[in-house]
Every structure is written in C-alpha cells, then in structure tokens.
C-alpha cells in the first residue's frame, strides 16, 4: 500500500483500491508526460514520477525524499505566493488556477506551469501536503513575453467571436484588456459592410484597414492582418490577427486620395518600372477607377507613347546625375482608353545603398485644362509682342516724319541740334521782343495816317496792341516757364492772323510782311521747342516699348537655347551703348569707371543686357534736371567681391523715399513718389524686369538712395539724392 496517499478510511482495506492505487502509481510514474508530485507542507518531495526527476534534473541515485521543491523556485517567495492562491481558491471552494512560476535548475532558468492541490486529512482536515503536476512551459512563456513586448497588437478570437487572448499592445490600443469580449463590438462597421470574420471564413485570411472603436468609445483606424484557425476536423475555430494603429497613415492616405494631384511610387527591377503605389487621382489621370487597377502595371504601358516616355526617362536621369529632381516636365500621354493630353511630371529617382536605381517617386498633374489656356496666353503674348513691334515701327515713322520738319526749322532759325533750356529762353525772349518791335513799327506807320487806320481797322489795331502787350509782358503774365513757348506760339499765330485780316494794298506791303515774318520766326522757334520735346518723347517711348516687348515675350524663349557664360565687361559696354543717345538728349554724362573686371556670369545674354540697360536707363531718366551749369551724371563701375561680381550704377538725381526702396520700387508699374513728374515717361516695367532677370540667374539687386546735402534729423526730399543700384551676380568664370 502506498503510504503517501491518504484516502477514505474504509477503502484502505479494499484490495481493489490498493491495486488501483498501485496501478495509478505505476501509470503516473512512467506513462504521463507531465511531472506529478506529492510534497509535504514544507515542500519535501514525498512521491513523484520519473518526469519530475527529468524536469528538475534530480539524479537517479538521489533519494527523492531528500529533495525540497522550495529550492527550485528562482524567487523563494514565489512558493508562498503560489500557495496563497491555492489557499484562497480552497477557501471559496474552487479549484485553484494553473500558475506560471520561474524555476532555476542549476544554471538554467525554466518556466513551469503548476497545477497544485492541497491534501487534507478527511476527518481532521489537517493539511497533509500538496499534490500537483508541472509542465515545462519555458518556450511558451518566452513566446508570450515576446508577444507582449511587440509594439504591434496580437489577438486571438474563437469561433464564437470571443477574444481569447491578446498582448499588451492590443490592450493599449483599445484602452484596456479585451479578453472575453465579443470582437464584433470593437469594429465601427458601415451598414452592410462585411465583417472581418466573414472575410476570413471565406478567404482564409484578411488584410485591410478597419475603423475601430476603443473601450472609451474613440474611433481610430487599424490595419488588421488575420489568418484563420481550424480545428482538428478542419472547421472554423476562430482566427489570429495582428493589429496596428494606422490612423495617421489613414488620414494621410485619405488626404492623398482627395488631393487633385497624382502621387505615385515606381519600383525598378531589371530595367522595368512598375507602379508600386499610387493614390486615386493618379489612377484617374491614367483612365482607371482606383489605385488597385494601376498598382503592378508597367509605367511604359501606362504612358502609352514610347518616344515621350524615353525622353522623360532620359531627362530624369540627366537631372538625377546633377543631383536634382526633375521638375515641371510636360509630357504627352495616351491612356489605355485612347485619351491624349498633357501631364506635368515632377519626379525623383530612388537609390539603394549601392547607388543603384531602385525606383522613383513623383507627382503628376493633369494639364488638360491648362494647356489650352497656356496656348491662349502664348498667342496673346505673341499678339501683344506684334502690336508692340508695330508701335515701335509707328514711333519710328513719327520720328522720321518729324525729323525733316525739325531739321528745316533748325536750319532756318540757325539753331543747333541740341538747345539748352536757357538758350531757348533767351532766343524766345529775343524774338518776342523783335516781334513786339515790329508791331510797334507797324502801329507807328499806321497811326501816322487816318487812311491807314481806316484801311487796317480799329479792331485789328487794338488786337495788335493787345498782342504786343502780351509779348512785352509774357514773362510776368506767364509765370510757369513751360507755358511760355505755347503762349508765344499762340500770340505769334494770332499776330499772323491779324496780318492776314489786313486788306492787301491797304498799307505798304513790307510793313505787314515784316510783322508776319517776325511772327513766323517766333512761331517756328516755339515749334522747334515743342518738336524737340516730341523727339525726346519718341526716343523714350521707343525704348519703353522695345523694353516692354522684350519683357513680355521673354517667356517664349527657352532657357536652354540662351544661357551661357557672358563676359561682364561686354554686358556693361553693350548696356551703356544702348542708352548713350538717350543720355545725350537728356544732357546726362555716362561715366565708366574702368577697368571692368574680366569675369563672366552665367546668364541669357540678351536678358541680362536688357536688365542692366534698364537700370542705367532708369538712372539717366531720373537724373536731376539742371537747366544750366554742368550736366548731370551717371557712373557705372564694377568690382569682384569674393565669388561675386558687383556692378554699381549711381546717379545724381530724383530722391527715392526710404519706404519705397525695399520692394515698392520693384513692383510692376511702380513709379517713385518723387518721380511722378511727367517729364519722365515710363511704364514702370524696367526695374521689375531687371529684378526678375537678375534673380533668375541667382543674383540680387538693391537700391540705396541718400541725400547729397547734410540733413537734420528729418530727411528733406526736395534736393538731389545719390542713388546707387547695386547688382551682384555669381561669377561663373575668371577670364584672362
């Protein structure tokens, strides 16, 4: 009889019970694959099977009764904790739960699952010991710990949709443990949307993004990867799944899908490009309903036009070799449904760590609506350019027509090509006086005879007297110098009119002829002064029109055809040559501070010459108008500063108010507050154009304006200012 198993009293004597016990002992010793034991309350092993010896690595020759289980607990307190659990379960009449405990077997830690029961005397209830079984769950426990370390959620659901197990990450995701819950309550499904379980049942697996609901009722998006579990008969027994929060990614994906641009990713293998990811717009652009229709397709087939596609790839690789993405490339495509249109592609190649191209990412834009508009703008630009060209021709026609008249008058009046304002004033005064004298002489002659007076008429005489008085007092009557020539012109014209009114033969012809002749001279002089202004205006307008035409049509000229290294001295020389006639007409001296540094800049030569010319032209235009004395001046100088060339154009001229300098002065159509004097015509395009051109070639332009006279605290703007335009450009080459 086994001394170690206490049983109900009467059964001890029953030989069948003894045999049963013996048989049980035999079975537990050798057959069961679990370690079974019986220990005293203190933990000494009273009986066990072979499995226990194996599990605890107790040598075969060691007496089992000398071994105490307590010594195998890694944490000695764990035994007491475990027995507390057993006692608590016993107190409430339940079986204790299986417990996981860490053991130390020599050097090796293991984890065992223990199912333990107390053994008591059936009469006294005295604790006789503990019996139970142990299973080595080291591997399972390591897996479980690993699962709980995962940042991704893992959970298992049974065939009744109840969550059987989950790891910490799943609990964090839902805001608490979900074991025992119906998993269907955690999904925010749209009506009639298939449940995850239905898909898993049908397909054996499922992978998708689902809208979930946490225990606190908050919604989030989760990507779930589920695989079916089958029982021994092959029937559905639930599923296991991973779950991770993709709320941010999902929002981003929705945003991408709602974007009016086509985003895509291509993977390159064995020289072939395949769409690996894209958004809905990309698919739509190429004539497909959804991303899944396009993912996996060859890009070559998507584009439809092989030649254009190759051209695009060549450009992309070229830009890549220079370290740049390809931006704004327009390409004509033909979709699978036959549509042909333009798209704009912006793309960047992707490389692996060996530098090999593994794909690319990009954005495409449908230009279907824009291209017609762009073509329209191009046509309008051409039309405007043509019109401005016509205006240039018209101005030339006007100049050619005015020139002979002006030359003839200058010849008759023995006037030089350029007449200063002072000289004009003096000449006007002289001729006015001369005419007044002629009128006086005529009056004396007429008044000397009653017959002459009658013949000439009182009215004509009075008018001549009035006009004579105007001639003699015009400087007092007409305070504004600019008005004097037109007033004198009017007077002279009126005098000639009176002379025409006098009857022929009424008085000696040479008397009226002299007056008429002197009036004609004064008239011609006034016309010359007016035509000089016309000539100068034509000159200025011609420059503005040509400059405007160049500015408007520059977009139509492609950069590739125009950009090169351009020598700075040549740029400056050509710019000055463009304005030298204008400067002469405005009595402005253009000074060159030589030598100009022998360097080049990278630019479109025509545009850069125009940009610098505009600045010099501006400087001349806004020079201080001096009626007498020395000419105004503009100085052009250049020097090298580090890796840049610095070109300065300085003028002695109209002030620029401090608050206009930063950016107002560069705005299209802007005129400075102090430059609204209409003698300086202009479109306000010049500096805008210059700034754009200079900045396009990685340069800068700044304007500085300061008074020429010492000022008190407040700057006085009624004086000439020194204004310096500073253009800086990166040097591309140093020339010998």
């Amino acid at each position, binding site marked *: 009889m086994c001394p170690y198993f206490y049983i109900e009293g009467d059964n001890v004597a029953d030989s069948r019970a003894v045999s049963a016990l013996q048989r049980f002992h035999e079975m537990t010793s050798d057959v069961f694959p679990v370690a079974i034991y019986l220990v005293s309350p203190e933990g000494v092993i009273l009986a066990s099977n072979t499995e226990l010896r194996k599990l605890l690595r107790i040598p075969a020759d060691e007496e089992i009764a000398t071994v105490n289980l307590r010594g195998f607990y890694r944490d000695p307190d764990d035994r007491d904790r475990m027995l507390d659990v057993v006692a608590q379960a016993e107190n409430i009449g339940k079986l204790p739960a299986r417990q996981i405990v860490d053991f130390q077997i020599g050097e090796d830690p293991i984890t065992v699952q223990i199912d333990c029961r107390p053994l008591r005397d059936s009469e006294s209830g005295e604790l006789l010991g503990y019996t139970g079984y142990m299973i080595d769950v080291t591997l399972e426990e390591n897996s479980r710990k690993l699962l709980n370390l995962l940042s991704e959620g893992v959970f298992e659901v049974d065939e009744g949709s109840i969550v059987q197990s989950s790891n910490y990450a799943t609990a964090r995701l839902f805001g608490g443990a979900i074991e025992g819950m119906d998993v269907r309550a955690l999904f925010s499904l749209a009506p009639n949307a298939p449940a995850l379980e239905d898909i898993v049942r049908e397909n054996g697996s499922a992978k998708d993004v689902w809208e979930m609901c946490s225990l606190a009722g908050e919604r989030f998006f989760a990507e779930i990867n589920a695989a079916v579990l089958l029982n021994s008969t092959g029937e559905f027994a639930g599923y296991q799944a991973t779950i991770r929060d993709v709320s941010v990614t999902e929002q981003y994906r929705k945003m991408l899908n709602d974007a009016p641009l086509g985003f895509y990713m291509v993977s390159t293998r064995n020289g072939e490009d395949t769409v690996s990811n894209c958004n809905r717009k990309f698919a739509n652009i190429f004539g497909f309903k959804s991303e899944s229709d396009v993912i996996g397709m060859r890009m070559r087939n998507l584009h439809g036009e092989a030649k254009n596609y190759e051209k695009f790839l060549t450009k992309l690789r070229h830009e890549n070799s220079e370290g740049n993405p390809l931006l704004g490339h327009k390409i004509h495509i033909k979709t699978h449904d036959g549509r042909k249109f333009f798209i704009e592609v912006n793309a960047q190649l992707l490389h692996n760590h060996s530098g090999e191209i593994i794909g690319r990412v990009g954005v495409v834009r449908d230009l279907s609506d824009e291209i017609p508009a762009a073509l329209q703008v191009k046509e309008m630009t051409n039309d405007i350019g043509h019109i401005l060209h016509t205006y240039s021709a018209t101005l030339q026609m006007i100049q050619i027509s005015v020139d002979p008249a002006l030359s003839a008058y200058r010849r008759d009046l023995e006037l030089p090509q350029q007449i200063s304002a002072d000289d004009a004033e003096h000449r006007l005064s002289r001729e006015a006086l001369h005419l007044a004298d002629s009128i006086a002489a005529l009056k004396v002659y007429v008044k000397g005879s009653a017959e002459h007076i009658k013949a000439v008429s009182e009215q004509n005489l009075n008018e001549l007297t*009035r*006009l004579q008085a*105007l001639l003699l007092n015009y400087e007092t*009557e*007409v305070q*504004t110098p*600019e*008005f004097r*020539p*037109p*007033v004198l*012109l*009017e*007077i002279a014209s*009126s005098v000639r009119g009176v002379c025409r009114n006098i009857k022929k033969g009424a008085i000696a012809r040479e008397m009226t002829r002299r007056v008429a002749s002197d009036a004609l001279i004064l008239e011609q002089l006034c016309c010359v002064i*007016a035509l000089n202004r016309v000539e100068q205006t034509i000159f200025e307008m011609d420059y503005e029109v040509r400059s405007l035409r160049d500015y408007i049509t520059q977009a139509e000229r492609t950069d590739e055809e125009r950009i090169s290294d351009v020598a700075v001295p040549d740029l400056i020389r050509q710019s000055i040559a463009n304005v030298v006639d204008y400067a002469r007409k405005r009595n402005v001296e253009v000074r060159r501070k030589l030598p100009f540094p022998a360097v080049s800049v990278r630019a479109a030569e025509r545009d850069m010459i125009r940009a610098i010319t505009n600045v010099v032209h501006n400087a001349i235009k806004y020079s201080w108008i001096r009626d007498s004395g020395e000419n105004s001046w503009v100085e052009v100088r250049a020097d090298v500063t580090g890796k840049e060339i610095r070109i300065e154009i300085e003028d002695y001229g109209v002030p620029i108010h401090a608050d206009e300098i930063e950016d*107002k002065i560069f705005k299209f*159509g*802007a005129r400075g*507050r102090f430059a*609204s*004097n*209409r*003698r300086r015509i202009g479109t306000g395009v010049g500096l805008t154009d210059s700034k754009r051109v200079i900045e396009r070639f990685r340069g800068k332009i700044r304007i500085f304006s300061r008074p020429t006279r010492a000022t008190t605290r407040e700057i006085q703007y009624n004086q000439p200012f020194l204004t310096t335009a500073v253009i800086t450009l990166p040097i591309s080459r140093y020339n010998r």
Partner: protein
Amino acid sequence: MSKKRVLWIEDGALTDLPQLVGPVYVDGNIALTVALDASDGFRKLRTEEYHAVIVDIRLPPGNDDVWIRLFEAVKQDKTQARLGLVLLDACLGTPVPELRTEPRPEWWSESGRFAVFSVEHQRELASDLRRLNLTLYRQKSARESRLVLLELIRSILDNHATVPTNAESPD
C-alpha cells in the same frame, strides 16, 4: 473787365498738355492757375475762389500726408486711386473724414463751376458725375484740338450768368 479766375488741376499740364494753355492766356480774360497734384489742387481750392475749376481724375497725391495716405490705401496706383474724384467729392459731395473742411466755402456748392477733363470715357464716370451733379465733361483724346481747354472754360463761364461778389480777381 476783370479776369476770370480759373483753376486747372492736371498733372500733365507741364509735360503733355502745355499747348492747351496758349489759347487760354491769349484769350486775355482768364487768369489761369495750374495745380499739378491733388495736394496742391485742394490747397488752392481751400484758399481761393475760382470761377471755373477743371479737374483731371487720375492725379498723383503730391506731398500732403493726407493725400499720400489716400493714395497708398489704393495700392499706390493713380488709375485706381482716382484722387480727382476724391477731390471733387470733398468739394461737391461727401468728403472722406480727413478732407472735411470747416467752414466749407460756399462757392463749392456750385457744381456748375466744375468740369472734368480726363482720359476715361464718360461712361466709366457716369454714376460719379451724376452723383456730384457734374454736367461738363471732356475726354482727353488725340483728336481734340488745342482749343479744348479754352472751350471747356468758356462752357463753364457762359453757364454762370451771375458772378458772386467775392469772386473778382484783382488785375
């Protein structure tokens, strides 16, 4: 007979349109004063009385801070700013607060003394002209003769049969 005082507010008077003043001066009955910007024009309107005032719509502001601010408020573009209309409103209509003049010169209420000579087509200004009760308008154009300014002045003067006693200008 004393000369009629006429104010012409026009920024192109010295540069583009000086030929127009010849006939005015030679007429002999007109004492012409010219203002080249809104500041100067408004200053003259407040200090002197005129028999006739000819106003351009597109005026630069001049040097007065009030007009500069009004100009800058409309992106500093005189085409958009229409300072000539602002000036006419100050005299004939509802002035902007910064331009209120107290006491308001009595003669300002006589819209018949004012005329517009500007580049816009009359259609563009129709509602403003109606609002200000302005009936005299001439559009600047290359087709106009050099007598246009004189004709406009005479239209104003001829429409004014009675001349206020304080409008006489010393000769």
